[in-house]
């Protein structure tokens, strides 16, 4: 067939408006009737399918609980063992620095490398300290004794953090010993040249849940929103009702917006549930404006719902559409949004790709509003992107909605 050029579609659509209904053109009630009819029909579909509705509400709750409790990126209470060959007050004092810290948990002593190896292999310990037999003597004599730290680096990130902790403890121990020696020699304690006073802003306790929960809200909303709408147009195709719809005067914009409306309500309900869970269950501080957070969520949801509809329109099959929706929202939201991996650490080409991932902007916005308490004055570029994305994808979805078979 020869498809009508896009220009013709538009012309005939406006002609449709102008023809017998000219007098009613400015009555919004009448103009919105088709949209409203589609929205109501879609809402009935949702109501009649309680399983899907349950999933749409239940999955976000489940995921927040799962991620909130399980996905903690904090490294604390690192189990460690000690092979103390020195057995001196000095060596015991050094080890006491670890056991006294909340970052380490003492799991006993070992005697020899084979025991040490077993402790690491069985994951009984992630760190093993080997203190040589001349530790106490060397320290007393002013020689620099060495301590071996064996770290399980099967998770390199965690290993780096553990080594950082160990270094900090050793540095503090060195300083204390140096100060002690100076006092003994000169009678006065020296003042250190540079004193770093760290103040951690926005997440003072460095608790990972405070940034994981806002991030996971963004990831979940992306996934759910696209999944919700990915089935709607494909279902009409599969059941043959699309042909009936195309024979009626319903316009693509009415069909798409009408279908979007009830799912938008579900999406916003999900956001509110997620918000309440974050605040009440996980005590994540919300420092910014709730209204702004909801408004940004609305923008993100509209864009993602439109993405789902576009996929549905192109795929025409429910199974394919839902899989495409999953892959195209969850993966980028999880991997490329800066939620799990810092965008600054990604290779340059991947960093460029992250710029077209809406979840990136939404994650940034949610974290900013939650933790930094900032508003649009700081985040307007991200908000603008979400707005543009929503409008563009919606427009494409409407344009791609067929008025014809073939």
């Amino acid at each position, binding site marked *: 067939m020869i498809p009508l050029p896009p220009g013709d579609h538009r012309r005939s659509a406006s002609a449709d408006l102008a023809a017998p209904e000219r007098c009613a053109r400015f009555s919004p009630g009448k103009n919105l009737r*088709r949209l409203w009819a589609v929205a109501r029909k879609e809402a009935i579909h949702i109501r009649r399918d309680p399983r899907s509705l349950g999933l749409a509400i239940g999955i976000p709750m489940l995921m927040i609980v799962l991620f909130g409790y399980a996905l903690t990126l904090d490294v604390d209470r690192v189990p460690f063992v000690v092979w103390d060959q020195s057995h001196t007050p000095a060596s015991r004092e050094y080890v006491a620095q670890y056991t006294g810290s909340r970052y380490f948990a003492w799991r006993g002593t070992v005697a020899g490398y084979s025991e040490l190896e077993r402790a690491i292999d069985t994951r009984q310990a992630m760190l093993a300290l080997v203190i040589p037999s001349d530790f106490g003597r060397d320290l007393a004599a002013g020689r620099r004794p060495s301590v071996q730290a064996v770290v399980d680096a099967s998770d390199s990130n965690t290993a780096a953090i553990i080594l950082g902790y160990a270094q900090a403890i050793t540095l503090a121990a060195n300083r204390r010993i140096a100060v002690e020696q100076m006092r003994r020699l000169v009678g006065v304690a020296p003042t250190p040249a540079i004193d770093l006073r760290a103040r951690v802003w926005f997440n003072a306790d460095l608790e990972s849940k405070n940034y994981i929960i806002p991030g996971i809200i963004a990831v979940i909303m992306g996934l759910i929103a696209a999944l919700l709408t990915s089935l709607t147009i494909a279902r009409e195709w599969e059941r043959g009702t699309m042909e009936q719809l195309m*024979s009626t005067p319903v316009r693509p914009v009415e069909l798409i917006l009408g279908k979007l409306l009830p799912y938008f309500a579900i999406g916003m309900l999900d956001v509110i549930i997620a918000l309440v869970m974050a605040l009440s269950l996980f005590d994540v501080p919300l420092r910014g404006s709730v209204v702004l957070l909801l408004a940004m969520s609305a923008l993100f949801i509209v864009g993602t719902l439109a993405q789902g509809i576009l996929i549905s329109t192109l795929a025409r099959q429910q199974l394919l559409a839902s899989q495409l929706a999953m892959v195209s929202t969850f993966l980028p939201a999880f991997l490329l949004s800066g939620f799990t991996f810092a965008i600054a650490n990604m290779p340059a080409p991947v960093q460029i790709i992250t710029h077209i991932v809406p979840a990136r902007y939404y994650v940034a916005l949610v974290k900013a509003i939650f933790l930094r308490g900032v508003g649009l004055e700081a985040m307007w570029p991200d908000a603008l992107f979400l707005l543009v994305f929503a409008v563009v994808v919606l427009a494409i979805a409407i344009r791609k909605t067929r008025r014809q078979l*073939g």
Partner: protein
Amino acid sequence: MRVEPASSAEVVVEVQDLEKRFGAFRAVAGVSFAVRRGEVFGFLGPNGAGKSTTIRMLCGLLTPTAGTGRVAGLDLRREAERIKTQIGYMSQKFSLYDELTVEENIAFFSGIYRVPREKKAARQAWVLAMAGLERHRRTRTGELAGGWKQRLALGCAVLHEPPILFLDEPTSGVDPNSRRLFWDLIYRLSEQGVTVFVTTHYMEESEYCDRLGIIYRGELIALGAPRVLKTELMPEAVLEIDCARPPEAMQVIEKVPEVKEVALFGRGLHAVAADAEAAGAAIRSALAAQGFALERLERITPTLEDVFVSLIENRDRLAGAQAEVRR
């Protein structure tokens, strides 16, 4: 193909050399006809003949590859979207929403067709009464029996009182009683001035139409009132034969030189021959010679099926001959 001259009555559907190709396949090959206001116009043909493709072009669901057409005075190519406000369409496949109740389906289509609010209640009541669904208004549509579903679909297609109604095999898969009820509804709409364009592959149904187009392999091979088609389109005579053991008798009659073709028809046989008198005499003597008891032999008005079979066979013979010549 000759287009019936538009008489005094207004022509509401008119196509000229309408053609639709899907790749190399010509689904509809140069079809021309005109339908007058209030007419029940039938499109008869086997599956795959191009009936649905034609109806979809008329409804603005497919754009013709070639040819022109107007529906309700609107151009098929340029005003497809405006045509959609003037027509009701029932597709071959049942296409209401199964999960919705009867009432909800009606409400949805009233909204889609923008049935004026003040008319809505009356139209809904009319559809419910017409389809006989008053007591099932809150039943899920998916649970309805075939005949009810189909009457509800018709009701939803005419909610907005369109002047033209397109029905694509509306009665396929419906029991005979429901089929008759459905045709009563079609007649009632037609009496109110609604033009009904209906496709079918049921011979007896096509007799209900005011005029009939026979479509075969994408081409319109005959057009006219069923009575006219039966009397004018068939140059040969049809003889109806009631005799003992028709299948065996058929083999005997086949060998009679005056008989062009013979086929089982109901409990008897139909023989086609150029000269009814000569063929009748020849059949009588052949059957008698073989010892078949002949109960009845008379010339009848051909049925539409006779016409249809004869037209198609002539057509295929012609196509075969042309292929031979080309080779």
